[in-house]
């Protein structure tokens, strides 16, 4: 397929999708944390949130409800800071009422995602992370088809939690990647053990090890595990930068390690 030259993704160096067949495994949380870790490492990062029914990114980054402006090239992304180190686009910014339900069938979702891919003026970015809803349907096909027209897609990170109910869905997502020619950059096991903030006892609430087994079973790279950390949960709930608040935590260390492996992988394909 010929790639359209120029366009709004022309100065975006790398595009990575964050996928999971399963809902609630932490795609948006890890997209947010990986973006913050990459920024922490001096990269210019963007997040495109194509979860139209449940857009979580705006709240996680505490950007409230800013107005989205237009420029000659299309929509101006929302920046989390004056230095414009982290750029965002989400349907969350376009809704009048944050509780308004987006009750759209596939074709309408496909059309907006096409616009999100081509009409956001990202400018210069090192990495654009694309947060997706669970599944293997309209949104995933739309974002992939539109990205492929405009830009090389580096690949996808797949998120799972340890239990079989999750890895069972993620196996299907792996098939989606293989069928659509999307490179799997690796699998992350999230909520991998719960560390009590009071006594540091580790409980395997959602069991453990399923992500690593899945990686072995499917011949994928295992990027690592991230624990279920109530301090991270609270940061996300409150829209705070976990990395600024808890730079010495084991959780940050795990996220940072995944971010570094990701960077190495996309810079040396």
């Amino acid at each position: 397929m010929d790639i359209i030259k120029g366009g709004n993704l022309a100065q975006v160096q790398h595009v990575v999708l964050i996928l999971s067949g399963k809902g609630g495994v932490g795609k948006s949380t890890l997209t947010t944390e990986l973006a913050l870790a990459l920024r922490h490492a001096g990269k210019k990062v963007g997040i495109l949130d194509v979860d139209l029914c449940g857009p979580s990114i705006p709240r996680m980054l505490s950007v409230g409800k800013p107005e989205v402006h237009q420029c000659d090239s299309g929509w101006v992304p929302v920046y989390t800071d004056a230095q414009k180190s982290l750029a965002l686009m989400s349907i969350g910014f376009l809704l009048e009422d944050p509780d308004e339900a987006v009750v759209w069938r596939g074709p309408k979702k496909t059309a907006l995602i096409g616009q999100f891919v081509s009409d956001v003026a990202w400018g210069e970015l090192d990495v654009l992370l694309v947060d997706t809803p669970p599944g293997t349907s309209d949104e995933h096909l739309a974002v992939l088809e539109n990205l492929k027209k405009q830009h090389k897609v580096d690949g996808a990170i797949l998120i799972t939690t340890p239990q079989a109910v999750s890895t069972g869905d993620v196996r299907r997502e792996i098939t989606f990647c293989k069928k659509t020619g999307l490179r799997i950059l690796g699998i992350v096991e999230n909520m991998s053990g719960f560390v009590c903030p009071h006594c540091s006892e580790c409980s395997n609430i959602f069991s453990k090890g399923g992500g690593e087994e899945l990686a072995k079973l499917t011949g994928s790279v295992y990027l690592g595990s991230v624990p279920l950390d109530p301090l991270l949960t609270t940061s996300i709930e409150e829209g705070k930068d976990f990395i600024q608040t808890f730079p010495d935590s084991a959780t940050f260390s795990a996220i940072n390690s995944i971010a570094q492996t990701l960077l190495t992988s996309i810079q040396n394909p």
Partner: protein
Amino acid sequence: MADIPSDAPQHCPGTASEQAGKTSACQGCPNQNLCSSGATKAPDPAIEEIAEKMLTVKHKILVLSGKGGVGKSTFSAHLAHALASDATKEVALLDVDICGPSIPRIMGLEGEQVAGLSLCLSPRYVEDNLAVMSIGFLLSSPDDAVIWRGPKKNGMIKQFLRDVDWGELDYLIVDTPPGTSDEHLSIVQYLSSARIDGAVIITTPQEVSLQDVRKEIRFCQKVQLPIIGVVENMSGFVCPKCKVNLPPTTGGAERMCEEMNLTLLGRVPLDPRIGKSCDEGKSFLSEVPDSPAAAAYHSIVQSIQAYCLSHVTREESAG
């Protein structure tokens, strides 16, 4: 006909639109004559066929959440087990999560294929009085991905409702994927002539869930789907070592229910044994019957049963 047929042009207005067959995009489309005749705006005949089929189903309950991973399938499965524990009741569980069908695993039916794909789809039975149907049964391998756009998913849901041999049921529980999209619109549309008792909405205490669940509630209001109530799942975790409890940050489901004038059916605590039971395809209610979580489930199920029965009584008095 599907809202956007597979051979439609790029800017097809939709076959049910007022502009169907009449816009500039319609020029040259093979369906143009059909659309402009108005035939495609007629109600789908499947709706009446399904209503006919559903005459033998006393109560229909949808399990919804705007948010993924809050425990819809877990709850649906255990609601089904609890209702079926009364041997005089016939219960069925329909899984319309086409892309991520978890129900076969959770019900211990993984790897069971369904015979007779073409005309009469027969459900699988967990107990004599507990039937299950899921696209998971139609997939030949655990790696098979269902990479379908909306219209094809809608067609599958129609088949599940119209062509599955449900028989006489006291309860049909429908487990849904997260969101407010094709699957949700289709299930409500296809059951529109069949009276749904209501929806049970599942959330977890975190705001990241509640913000999506409020949208789901708005969806229910928009399509006039009654809400039986809200279940707060994974409600608090008590560390097994130090016993300290971790509370929600924005008032959880309780505050949301107050604000939106809904019933909080109950809270189910986060018990690692629930996830383990699901992975093993066993009923947590049988595995750990004396746990606080099992007690919470039973109390919630009783509230749902009471709602369904009072619903019938109200209808009978009104009729």
